[in-house]
């Protein structure tokens, strides 16, 4: 676990070059050996959300869509799920949200906010 906590300090979704510009890479190298490190990739993290919220967060069924919702809303919702007092009516998201760090939650909120809510299958990266 400790290994991961260290790496989790690099915000998910930042490309290596941006991370370098921000000086994160330096910190990483100083903190731990370079070997056995894999780059964070927000699409990998976000992949699991699709299994209930639909591909790219566009839900085909009774579960809410998360694509194109305001980042602040997604973030506050996820934080509330993760807290010890989840919003009334919560069934499973409190259990799932606890599995992610605050940084990961922030990156996920940003990721899904950036996806348009309706656009069918237009190409979209990042």
């Amino acid at each position, binding site marked *: 676990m400790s290994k991961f906590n260290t790496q989790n300090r690099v915000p998910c979704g930042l490309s290596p070059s941006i991370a370098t510009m921000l000086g994160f890479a330096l910190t990483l190298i100083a903190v731990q050996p370079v070997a056995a490190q894999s780059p964070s990739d927000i699409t990998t993290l976000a992949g699991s959300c699709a*299994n209930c919220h*639909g591909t790219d967060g566009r839900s085909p*069924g009774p579960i809410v869509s998360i694509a194109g919702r305001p980042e602040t809303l997604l973030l506050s919702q996820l934080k509330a799920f993760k807290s010890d007092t989840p919003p009334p009516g919560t*069934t499973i998201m409190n259990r799932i949200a606890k599995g*992610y760090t605050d940084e990961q939650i922030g990156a996920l909120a940003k990721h899904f906010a950036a996806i348009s809510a309706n656009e069918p299958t237009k190409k979209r990266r990042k």
Partner: protein
Amino acid sequence: MTSAETKFSRRQALAMLGGVGATAFSFSTPAIAQRSAGRVVVVGGGFGGATAARYLKRGNPNLNVTLLDPARRFYTCPFTNLHFGGLRTFEQQGHGFDDLRRIGVQIVHERANDVDAKGKTVTLSGGRKLPYDRLVLSPGIDFRWGALEGYDQAAAELAPHAWQAGPQTVLLKKQLEAMEDGGLFILVAPDNPFRCPPGPYERASMVAHYLKTRKPKSKLLILDAKDNFSKQGLFQDGWKKFYADIIEWVPRSKDGKVAKVDAKAREVETEFGKKHKAAVLNVVPPQKAGFIAERAGVTNAGGWVPVKPQTFESAQVADVYVVGDATIAAPMPKSGFCANAQGKVAAAAIVASLAGREAPRASWANTCYSLIAPNYGISVAGVYEVADGKIVEIKGGGVSPREASDEFRKLEAEYGVGWYNAITQDTWGSKPA
């Protein structure tokens, strides 16, 4: 980067030995490899394979992706239990491959009969050999015929397993419908590991719902090779509430382990010699990885596939990635959700490796809903990552609360349907049926 270099030099070495075909040769210089996206063959169009194919194309549209499955339409095991309960038609679990075709995946309706991991080809049932740069196997499970005495393929035609969706599902449903009111339905549950840990208990619940509403004098007996099972407390609470007079569960410690099956007589004999005769006998037999995994040399002595957790590449054979039920991925369960999640991780790793990049850090989740009665659902959830070279479950997750309102259970029943709609969209591009 370094792993890509190792691969190229290995290929070059093979080429010098004359062991490599012309196509593979063209990849033997890194400069070309960087421009060429590569060929990926995916075996199995179920939860793991169809997801891997879709996310490979999403990850790099220039990849040449071929998906093999003899089935023209895939029927999911998930929600077949609801079919036994009378809550869904069989066809509602069917999914086609047109949407995968639309995004550029080549679909070949043949079986993979063999894998030559050195020459990097797959032999199809039609005789053709397909070359690959990376291979994905998601063949699901095969049964260990005969491991349970008396239970072989012929026996399954009399006492169905219905643990792969298709003709077996139809057969069991037919037997259930033909059963007289007052009959005994016996479900034989296997020891770990097996496909879908909560599956036998959801099946028992849904069959019991059918019996309660259509054949109320009937009973259901679960003969179990284990002493505990997934979501046990929640299932047993639900059974007490809905099926107290119908379901009886016999754990191994109370002589629940079946040692012998007589499919013709629909009779089973337990470890300690007790005989039970059924009107309908449903046997979930011991399992192993689909046979093609063995052909590819990726299985261990136990018949399952060890993988490198970060990428789901075989721990034994380079460039062969295995996902889904065939793998040893504990603490992740053998579920459709996990097969899908693993398919995405393998796809991302393959896209990266073909581009000479390092695989992104893996992350998976699982949510598994079970329906005990209409409007009464329960769930288990987990989030997983790799730590110290092993897959670990992150703190959190767990099952639905024991004490929950009817409203809560109703929501979980509804979200179960939402999950099914979402994952079948994400895997095959299906619309809710």
